[in-house]
Protein backbone atom coordinates (compact mmCIF):
# COMPACT_ATOMS: atom_id res chain seq x y z
CA UNK A 1 0.00 0.00 0.00
CA UNK A 2 1.38 3.38 -0.95
CA UNK A 3 0.99 6.01 1.73
CA UNK A 4 1.00 9.49 0.23
CA UNK A 5 1.78 12.30 2.64
CA UNK A 6 -0.79 15.08 2.65
CA UNK A 7 0.61 18.11 0.84
CA UNK A 8 1.05 21.18 3.01
CA UNK A 9 -0.90 24.32 2.18
CA UNK A 10 2.32 25.93 1.01
CA UNK A 11 3.03 23.00 -1.35
CA UNK A 12 -0.50 23.15 -2.76
CA UNK A 13 -0.19 26.86 -3.48
CA UNK A 14 3.25 26.39 -5.04
CA UNK A 15 1.86 23.62 -7.27
CA UNK A 16 -0.78 25.98 -8.63
CA UNK A 17 1.67 28.87 -9.00
CA UNK A 18 4.05 26.57 -10.90
CA UNK A 19 1.57 26.54 -13.79
CA UNK A 20 2.17 30.28 -14.17
CA UNK A 21 5.69 30.96 -12.91
CA UNK A 22 7.38 27.61 -13.51
CA UNK A 23 10.58 27.08 -11.46
CA UNK A 24 10.25 30.61 -10.03
CA UNK A 25 7.01 29.62 -8.22
CA UNK A 26 8.40 28.38 -4.85
CA UNK A 27 10.60 31.47 -4.48
CA UNK A 28 7.74 33.77 -5.49
CA UNK A 29 5.36 32.31 -2.90
CA UNK A 30 8.01 32.09 -0.15
CA UNK A 31 8.95 35.73 -0.75
CA UNK A 32 5.30 36.79 -0.56
CA UNK A 33 4.66 34.88 2.68
CA UNK A 34 7.79 36.23 4.34
CA UNK A 35 7.21 39.82 3.22
CA UNK A 36 3.44 40.19 3.56
CA UNK A 37 2.65 37.71 6.33
CA UNK A 38 5.99 37.94 8.16
CA UNK A 39 6.19 34.21 8.70
CA UNK A 40 8.03 31.19 7.38
CA UNK A 41 6.45 29.53 4.32
CA UNK A 42 5.86 26.22 6.14
CA UNK A 43 3.83 28.05 8.82
CA UNK A 44 1.21 29.16 6.29
CA UNK A 45 -2.37 28.45 7.41
CA UNK A 46 -5.73 28.66 5.62
CA UNK A 47 -6.64 32.00 7.24
CA UNK A 48 -3.57 33.57 5.58
CA UNK A 49 -4.88 32.84 2.12
CA UNK A 50 -6.95 36.05 1.66
CA UNK A 51 -3.87 38.23 2.28
CA UNK A 52 -1.76 35.98 0.08
CA UNK A 53 -4.44 36.04 -2.60
CA UNK A 54 -4.63 39.86 -2.66
CA UNK A 55 -0.88 40.19 -2.90
CA UNK A 56 -0.25 37.41 -5.42
CA UNK A 57 -3.06 38.61 -7.68
CA UNK A 58 -1.45 42.06 -7.84
CA UNK A 59 2.02 40.59 -8.30
CA UNK A 60 0.95 38.24 -11.10
CA UNK A 61 -0.85 41.15 -12.79
CA UNK A 62 2.51 42.99 -12.82
CA UNK A 63 4.07 40.08 -14.69
CA UNK A 64 1.43 39.53 -17.38
CA UNK A 65 -1.15 41.52 -19.32
CA UNK A 66 -3.36 38.44 -19.60
CA UNK A 67 -6.30 39.30 -17.30
CA UNK A 68 -7.87 35.88 -17.80
CA UNK A 69 -4.69 34.25 -16.51
CA UNK A 70 -4.72 36.45 -13.38
CA UNK A 71 -8.40 35.63 -12.80
CA UNK A 72 -7.81 31.93 -13.32
CA UNK A 73 -4.92 31.97 -10.83
CA UNK A 74 -6.94 33.74 -8.11
CA UNK A 75 -9.92 31.41 -8.65
CA UNK A 76 -7.71 28.39 -8.09
CA UNK A 77 -6.32 29.87 -4.86
CA UNK A 78 -9.88 30.63 -3.71
CA UNK A 79 -10.84 27.00 -4.24
CA UNK A 80 -8.01 25.93 -1.93
CA UNK A 81 -9.03 28.52 0.66
CA UNK A 82 -12.65 27.31 0.64
CA UNK A 83 -11.66 23.66 0.81
CA UNK A 84 -9.27 24.27 3.70
CA UNK A 85 -11.87 26.30 5.60
CA UNK A 86 -14.55 23.62 5.39
Amino acid sequence: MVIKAKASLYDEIVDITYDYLGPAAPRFIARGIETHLSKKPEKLIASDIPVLLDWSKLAIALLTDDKQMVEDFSQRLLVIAERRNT
Partner: protein
Amino acid sequence: MAKRYYWLLAVLVILYIVSIFVLKTDSATLARYHISDVQLKFLSLTIIIPAFAIWLAAFYSIVNTGKYAQKIKNTPHGEGFGHLANGVVIIGLGLPITSIVGRLLTYAVQQNAVSQAFSTIVSTHLTIVFYIVGFFFLYRGARLLAGSVRAKLSQRQVSGAIGALALISAFYAFATLSDPSRMAAHAPATTATYYMPDWLILLTVIIPYIVIWALGFFTTLLLATYYQKVGGAIYRAALVKLNFGFFVVILALIILQFITTVTTNLSGWGLSALLLLVYLLLAVIAIGYVLIALGAKGLAKLEEVI
Protein backbone atom coordinates in the same frame (compact mmCIF):
# COMPACT_ATOMS: atom_id res chain seq x y z
CA MET B 1 28.47 44.90 -12.00
CA ALA B 2 26.61 46.65 -14.85
CA LYS B 3 28.67 49.84 -14.51
CA ARG B 4 31.94 47.91 -14.64
CA TYR B 5 30.97 46.20 -17.89
CA TYR B 6 29.79 49.43 -19.54
CA TRP B 7 33.02 51.19 -18.56
CA LEU B 8 34.99 48.32 -20.06
CA LEU B 9 32.91 48.64 -23.23
CA ALA B 10 33.62 52.40 -23.40
CA VAL B 11 37.37 51.77 -23.08
CA LEU B 12 37.29 49.09 -25.79
CA VAL B 13 35.31 51.35 -28.17
CA ILE B 14 37.78 54.23 -27.68
CA LEU B 15 40.73 51.89 -28.22
CA TYR B 16 39.19 50.62 -31.44
CA ILE B 17 38.43 54.10 -32.83
CA VAL B 18 41.96 55.28 -32.00
CA SER B 19 43.39 52.21 -33.77
CA ILE B 20 41.48 53.07 -36.96
CA PHE B 21 42.97 56.56 -37.18
CA VAL B 22 46.45 55.64 -36.01
CA LEU B 23 47.09 52.62 -38.21
CA LYS B 24 48.27 53.01 -41.78
CA THR B 25 46.11 51.40 -44.43
CA ASP B 26 47.44 48.65 -46.63
CA SER B 27 48.08 50.17 -50.12
CA ALA B 28 46.89 46.97 -51.81
CA THR B 29 43.50 47.32 -50.08
CA LEU B 30 43.18 50.91 -51.32
CA ALA B 31 44.07 49.84 -54.88
CA ARG B 32 41.63 46.93 -54.81
CA TYR B 33 38.65 49.11 -53.88
CA HIS B 34 39.81 52.27 -55.76
CA ILE B 35 39.49 54.57 -52.73
CA SER B 36 41.79 56.91 -50.79
CA ASP B 37 43.19 56.34 -47.31
CA VAL B 38 40.84 58.96 -45.77
CA GLN B 39 37.83 57.48 -47.59
CA LEU B 40 38.70 54.02 -46.26
CA LYS B 41 39.06 55.33 -42.69
CA PHE B 42 35.58 56.91 -42.83
CA LEU B 43 34.21 53.78 -44.48
CA SER B 44 35.67 51.81 -41.56
CA LEU B 45 33.78 54.14 -39.20
CA THR B 46 30.47 53.33 -40.95
CA ILE B 47 31.20 49.62 -40.44
CA ILE B 48 32.17 50.00 -36.80
CA ILE B 49 28.96 51.84 -35.85
CA PRO B 50 26.89 48.65 -36.30
CA ALA B 51 29.82 46.69 -34.82
CA PHE B 52 29.63 48.91 -31.71
CA ALA B 53 25.87 48.34 -31.67
CA ILE B 54 26.56 44.59 -31.45
CA TRP B 55 29.13 45.09 -28.72
CA LEU B 56 26.61 47.22 -26.79
CA ALA B 57 23.88 44.59 -27.34
CA ALA B 58 26.32 41.86 -26.24
CA PHE B 59 27.26 43.77 -23.08
CA TYR B 60 23.57 44.50 -22.37
CA SER B 61 23.03 40.76 -22.64
CA ILE B 62 26.08 40.01 -20.43
CA VAL B 63 24.80 42.33 -17.70
CA ASN B 64 21.23 40.96 -17.72
CA THR B 65 22.06 37.25 -17.97
CA GLY B 66 24.65 37.78 -15.21
CA LYS B 67 22.12 39.54 -12.97
CA TYR B 68 19.58 36.75 -13.45
CA ALA B 69 22.13 33.97 -12.91
CA GLN B 70 23.24 35.70 -9.72
CA LYS B 71 19.65 35.92 -8.44
CA ILE B 72 18.98 32.21 -8.85
CA LYS B 73 22.47 30.83 -8.17
CA ASN B 74 21.34 28.73 -5.18
CA THR B 75 18.38 27.12 -6.94
CA PRO B 76 18.18 23.88 -8.97
CA HIS B 77 18.36 25.92 -12.22
CA GLY B 78 21.10 28.21 -10.94
CA GLU B 79 24.07 26.23 -12.19
CA GLY B 80 22.64 25.88 -15.70
CA PHE B 81 21.89 29.58 -16.03
CA GLY B 82 25.27 30.36 -14.47
CA HIS B 83 27.01 28.47 -17.27
CA LEU B 84 24.84 30.15 -19.91
CA ALA B 85 25.79 33.55 -18.44
CA ASN B 86 29.48 32.60 -18.51
CA GLY B 87 29.14 31.62 -22.17
CA VAL B 88 27.54 34.97 -22.97
CA VAL B 89 30.37 36.81 -21.16
CA ILE B 90 33.12 34.91 -22.99
CA ILE B 91 31.58 35.24 -26.47
CA GLY B 92 30.52 38.85 -25.79
CA LEU B 93 33.98 39.90 -24.57
CA GLY B 94 35.56 37.97 -27.42
CA LEU B 95 33.95 40.25 -30.02
CA PRO B 96 35.77 43.49 -29.08
CA ILE B 97 38.92 41.80 -27.75
CA THR B 98 39.60 39.84 -30.95
CA SER B 99 38.89 42.94 -33.07
CA ILE B 100 41.28 45.11 -31.05
CA VAL B 101 44.00 42.45 -30.89
CA GLY B 102 43.60 42.07 -34.67
CA ARG B 103 44.14 45.83 -35.12
CA LEU B 104 47.19 45.78 -32.81
CA LEU B 105 48.67 42.86 -34.70
CA THR B 106 48.12 44.72 -38.00
CA TYR B 107 50.02 47.65 -36.48
CA ALA B 108 52.81 45.33 -35.35
CA VAL B 109 53.05 43.92 -38.87
CA GLN B 110 53.26 47.46 -40.32
CA GLN B 111 56.06 48.24 -37.86
CA ASN B 112 57.81 44.99 -38.87
CA ALA B 113 57.62 43.87 -35.24
CA VAL B 114 55.95 40.59 -36.20
CA SER B 115 55.37 38.74 -39.45
CA GLN B 116 52.03 38.69 -41.29
CA ALA B 117 51.96 34.91 -40.72
CA PHE B 118 52.29 35.35 -36.95
CA SER B 119 49.55 37.99 -36.93
CA THR B 120 47.15 35.81 -38.95
CA ILE B 121 47.80 32.66 -36.91
CA VAL B 122 47.32 34.47 -33.57
CA SER B 123 44.13 36.23 -34.75
CA THR B 124 42.63 33.02 -36.14
CA HIS B 125 43.30 30.98 -33.03
CA LEU B 126 42.37 33.69 -30.54
CA THR B 127 38.92 33.86 -32.15
CA ILE B 128 38.63 30.05 -32.01
CA VAL B 129 39.60 29.98 -28.32
CA PHE B 130 36.91 32.53 -27.38
CA TYR B 131 34.26 30.70 -29.39
CA ILE B 132 35.13 27.18 -28.26
CA VAL B 133 35.23 28.12 -24.56
CA GLY B 134 32.10 30.30 -24.84
CA PHE B 135 30.11 27.68 -26.77
CA PHE B 136 31.23 24.97 -24.34
CA PHE B 137 29.76 26.97 -21.44
CA LEU B 138 26.53 27.53 -23.38
CA TYR B 139 26.28 23.82 -24.15
CA ARG B 140 27.00 22.85 -20.54
CA GLY B 141 24.38 25.32 -19.27
CA ALA B 142 21.76 24.09 -21.75
CA ARG B 143 22.50 20.46 -20.78
CA LEU B 144 22.13 21.18 -17.08
CA LEU B 145 18.85 23.03 -17.65
CA ALA B 146 17.45 20.22 -19.80
CA GLY B 147 18.61 17.72 -17.15
CA SER B 148 16.89 19.71 -14.38
CA VAL B 149 13.49 18.96 -15.95
CA ARG B 150 14.55 15.48 -17.16
CA ALA B 151 14.24 16.60 -20.78
CA LYS B 152 16.15 14.54 -23.32
CA LEU B 153 16.81 15.02 -27.02
CA SER B 154 14.90 12.63 -29.24
CA GLN B 155 16.73 10.28 -31.59
CA ARG B 156 15.29 12.29 -34.49
CA GLN B 157 16.72 15.56 -33.12
CA VAL B 158 20.16 14.00 -32.59
CA SER B 159 20.20 12.42 -36.07
CA GLY B 160 19.00 15.68 -37.66
CA ALA B 161 21.70 17.72 -35.90
CA ILE B 162 24.43 15.22 -36.79
CA GLY B 163 23.24 15.11 -40.43
CA ALA B 164 23.19 18.91 -40.74
CA LEU B 165 26.56 19.14 -39.02
CA ALA B 166 28.11 16.50 -41.32
CA LEU B 167 26.85 18.36 -44.38
CA ILE B 168 28.05 21.80 -43.31
CA SER B 169 31.37 20.35 -42.03
CA ALA B 170 32.09 18.55 -45.31
CA PHE B 171 31.39 21.72 -47.28
CA TYR B 172 33.45 23.81 -44.84
CA ALA B 173 36.43 21.42 -44.96
CA PHE B 174 36.27 21.33 -48.76
CA ALA B 175 36.02 25.16 -49.03
CA THR B 176 38.89 25.65 -46.57
CA LEU B 177 41.25 23.11 -48.08
CA SER B 178 40.57 24.26 -51.65
CA ASP B 179 41.34 27.90 -50.82
CA PRO B 180 44.40 28.60 -53.00
CA SER B 181 45.60 31.26 -50.55
CA ARG B 182 45.43 29.09 -47.43
CA MET B 183 49.22 28.68 -47.11
CA ALA B 184 50.55 31.56 -49.23
CA ALA B 185 48.85 34.56 -50.85
CA HIS B 186 47.62 34.15 -54.43
CA ALA B 187 46.12 37.10 -56.36
CA PRO B 188 43.65 38.72 -55.81
CA ALA B 189 44.40 37.99 -52.12
CA THR B 190 47.31 39.96 -50.67
CA THR B 191 47.77 37.80 -47.61
CA ALA B 192 47.34 34.07 -46.97
CA THR B 193 44.27 32.95 -45.08
CA TYR B 194 46.04 30.71 -42.53
CA TYR B 195 49.82 30.52 -43.22
CA MET B 196 49.72 26.89 -42.11
CA PRO B 197 50.05 23.48 -43.79
CA ASP B 198 46.84 21.53 -44.43
CA TRP B 199 47.25 19.12 -41.52
CA LEU B 200 47.58 22.02 -39.07
CA ILE B 201 44.59 23.81 -40.63
CA LEU B 202 42.60 20.60 -40.21
CA LEU B 203 43.66 20.07 -36.59
CA THR B 204 43.59 23.64 -35.30
CA VAL B 205 40.95 25.35 -37.44
CA ILE B 206 38.55 22.97 -39.19
CA ILE B 207 38.05 20.48 -36.35
CA PRO B 208 37.69 23.18 -33.65
CA TYR B 209 35.09 25.01 -35.78
CA ILE B 210 33.16 21.77 -36.31
CA VAL B 211 33.25 21.23 -32.52
CA ILE B 212 32.02 24.83 -31.99
CA TRP B 213 29.13 24.31 -34.43
CA ALA B 214 28.24 20.96 -32.84
CA LEU B 215 28.14 22.65 -29.41
CA GLY B 216 26.03 25.44 -30.93
CA PHE B 217 23.55 23.07 -32.59
CA PHE B 218 23.11 20.97 -29.45
CA THR B 219 22.82 24.05 -27.24
CA THR B 220 19.86 25.37 -29.26
CA LEU B 221 18.23 21.90 -29.31
CA LEU B 222 18.68 21.40 -25.55
CA LEU B 223 17.29 24.86 -24.78
CA ALA B 224 14.27 24.11 -27.00
CA THR B 225 13.75 20.79 -25.18
CA TYR B 226 14.00 22.55 -21.80
CA TYR B 227 11.40 25.06 -22.98
CA GLN B 228 9.02 22.28 -24.05
CA LYS B 229 9.31 20.45 -20.75
CA VAL B 230 9.39 23.25 -18.17
CA GLY B 231 6.10 24.58 -16.77
CA GLY B 232 4.80 28.10 -16.14
CA ALA B 233 3.03 30.19 -18.76
CA ILE B 234 4.65 33.48 -17.66
CA TYR B 235 8.06 31.86 -17.15
CA ARG B 236 7.91 30.32 -20.62
CA ALA B 237 6.98 33.66 -22.20
CA ALA B 238 10.24 35.16 -20.90
CA LEU B 239 12.19 31.99 -21.66
CA VAL B 240 11.09 31.92 -25.29
CA LYS B 241 12.75 35.31 -25.87
CA LEU B 242 15.95 34.11 -24.25
CA ASN B 243 15.94 30.86 -26.26
CA PHE B 244 15.18 32.59 -29.54
CA GLY B 245 17.97 35.07 -28.82
CA PHE B 246 20.44 32.23 -28.28
CA PHE B 247 19.19 30.52 -31.44
CA VAL B 248 19.67 33.69 -33.53
CA VAL B 249 23.11 34.55 -32.07
CA ILE B 250 24.46 30.99 -32.37
CA LEU B 251 23.16 30.56 -35.92
CA ALA B 252 24.39 33.98 -37.08
CA LEU B 253 27.83 33.38 -35.51
CA ILE B 254 28.05 30.01 -37.28
CA ILE B 255 27.16 31.67 -40.62
CA LEU B 256 29.69 34.45 -39.94
CA GLN B 257 32.42 31.92 -39.12
CA PHE B 258 31.53 29.95 -42.23
CA ILE B 259 31.64 33.03 -44.44
CA THR B 260 34.98 34.12 -42.98
CA THR B 261 36.44 30.96 -44.49
CA VAL B 262 35.48 31.91 -48.01
CA THR B 263 36.64 35.54 -47.69
CA THR B 264 38.84 35.19 -50.75
CA ASN B 265 35.86 34.23 -52.89
CA LEU B 266 33.76 37.00 -51.34
CA SER B 267 36.36 39.59 -52.36
CA GLY B 268 35.19 38.99 -55.89
CA TRP B 269 31.71 40.18 -54.97
CA GLY B 270 32.84 43.81 -54.64
CA LEU B 271 32.70 46.17 -51.73
CA SER B 272 28.95 46.93 -51.67
CA ALA B 273 27.88 43.27 -51.57
CA LEU B 274 30.43 42.56 -48.83
CA LEU B 275 29.25 45.53 -46.77
CA LEU B 276 25.61 44.53 -47.17
CA LEU B 277 26.35 41.00 -45.97
CA VAL B 278 28.38 42.27 -43.01
CA TYR B 279 25.65 44.78 -42.02
CA LEU B 280 22.96 42.10 -42.27
CA LEU B 281 24.82 39.62 -40.08
CA LEU B 282 25.76 42.31 -37.57
CA ALA B 283 22.11 43.40 -37.33
CA VAL B 284 20.93 39.81 -36.82
CA ILE B 285 23.51 39.18 -34.07
CA ALA B 286 22.62 42.46 -32.33
CA ILE B 287 18.90 41.55 -32.38
CA GLY B 288 19.76 38.12 -30.94
CA TYR B 289 21.73 39.66 -28.07
CA VAL B 290 18.91 42.10 -27.29
CA LEU B 291 16.44 39.18 -27.20
CA ILE B 292 18.71 37.28 -24.78
CA ALA B 293 18.88 40.38 -22.57
CA LEU B 294 15.10 40.94 -22.66
CA GLY B 295 14.46 37.26 -21.89
CA ALA B 296 16.86 37.39 -18.93
CA LYS B 297 15.25 40.64 -17.73
CA GLY B 298 11.80 39.02 -17.91
CA LEU B 299 13.02 36.00 -15.93
CA ALA B 300 14.71 38.25 -13.36
CA LYS B 301 11.43 40.14 -12.86
CA LEU B 302 9.84 36.88 -11.64
CA GLU B 303 12.47 36.82 -8.88
CA GLU B 304 12.01 40.46 -7.90
CA VAL B 305 8.29 41.13 -7.66
CA ILE B 306 6.97 41.24 -4.07
